[in-house]
Each structure stands twice: as C-alpha cells, then as structure tokens.
C-alpha cells in the first residue's frame, strides 16, 4: 500500500477537518472567523485543523491586514485519485502471488 498517501488520508480522516476542507472547496475562500461560525468547534480548534490541512498542502493561507484567508487546493487531492490506480497495482501483484501459490498447492 502506498505510503505517500498516508498524510493525505490521515489528514482527511478527521471528520471535522474534512468538513472544513469540504466547505472551503464548496464555498471558496474563507477567514478563520467565518469558518468557526459554523464548524461546531472553537476558533483555536479550527486554527489547529487549518494548520494540519496547510501542512498537507490541502489549503493555502493569504494574509490581508489582520485577517487570514484560507482557500482549498484541489490539486492536492490528485494522490487520492492516483491512489485507486495504485490499489489496482497492489491487487494485480496479489493476483500474481495467488496464482504462484495455486501452482505450488497440492491438487
């Protein structure tokens, strides 16, 4: 299984974080305050999630005066799509091993 996708998957495995990212995807750029208003968690918690999303390359921040605006980086999702082609590779190689095993097994 491809380790390169661990960060992306573990980042988005948190439902609150995933919801924040989804909202940025759907509604475009937002400030921390605007995101907090509907996130159901505190502003420090939202800020922390945004930091994790930023580290994973899923959001970008832009400073304007005292406000920080966050926007989703859809390109960062590419590994998620690639993941299925890698899974296909994973299963193809398992089929190879399975066929090898069947050859070795008694009838």
């Amino acid at each position, binding site marked *: *299984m491809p*380790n390169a996708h661990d960060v992306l*998957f573990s980042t988005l495995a948190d439902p609150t974080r*995933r919801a924040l990212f989804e909202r940025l995807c759907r509604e475009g750029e937002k400030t921390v305050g605007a995101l907090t208003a509907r996130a159901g968690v505190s502003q420090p918690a939202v800020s922390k999630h945004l930091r994790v999303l930023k580290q994973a390359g899923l959001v970008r921040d832009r400073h304007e005066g005292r406000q920080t605006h966050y926007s989703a980086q859809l390109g960062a999702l590419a590994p998620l*799509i690639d993941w299925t082609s890698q899974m296909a590779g994973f299963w193809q190689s398992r*089929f190879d091993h*399975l*066929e090898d095993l*069947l050859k070795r097994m008694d009838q």
Partner: protein
Amino acid sequence: MTNTAAEALSVVVEREIPYPPEKIWRALTQPHLIEEWLMKNDFKPIVDHRFNLRADWGAVDCQVLAVEPNKTLSYTWAAYGLESVVTWTLTPTGTGTQLRMEHSGFRPDQKQAYQGAKGGWQRFFAALEQLLARID
C-alpha cells in the same frame, strides 16, 4: 479525467485461472494460505468475524460480510479511517475459474450493510465527484 471520479475510486481485477473454484476458495479462506499471497491474518470464513491483515507498513481492519463457499466472499477493508469493501466472485468456466475481485465502497450510493459504517468519507467522495466534474 475520462472516467468519473466514482469509477476511478473503485478497483476491479478479473482473471481466468486454470484451477477449480474449490481450490481457489481454499487459498482465499485459509489463514496460512492467505498469508502466502496477501498478508498475515486471523481470518475465519464466518459472517461478522472481525480480523486484521498485517504487513510491515501497518494493518487493515476487516470484517466478514458474506460467505458463500466456492462462490462469493466479501469483507470490509478499513485503513486510514476509510471504509471500503472487497468482494471476491468465483465463476466456474470449462477450463478453470473466472476470479473477480472488486474493491469498492468509496461511492456514496454503495449500501453499507455492516455496522459502524461512517458516512463521512462517502459524503466526501460525493462532494469530490462534483468538484472534479467542475475542474473538467
């Protein structure tokens, strides 16, 4: 992307194998044989049985969904909080078996028959489909 995201988010591998279903079934369901081609495991061919597949990179949490000896085997496959389903189908042919493996369940329209399924990823993939459609 030529495929829809949903198509891209499921994996099908299908091969004709020159052995009878009974023999392939043993390789799919006996732990010491599963270990030889897939991963270390504590599998049992019993519906609702929970098991792990273990490799050096980590573990996959699984639960048996369906067992129809020599015909169908299905189990959940959870890694990274993402729940998916692996389904094996064995169809006898004149010279052996058509073996089909489908790894899916990321799709929002997938019926989640097992307990503890989280809708979150499914919803997310639905949203992702719309987003990717927009990028096209």
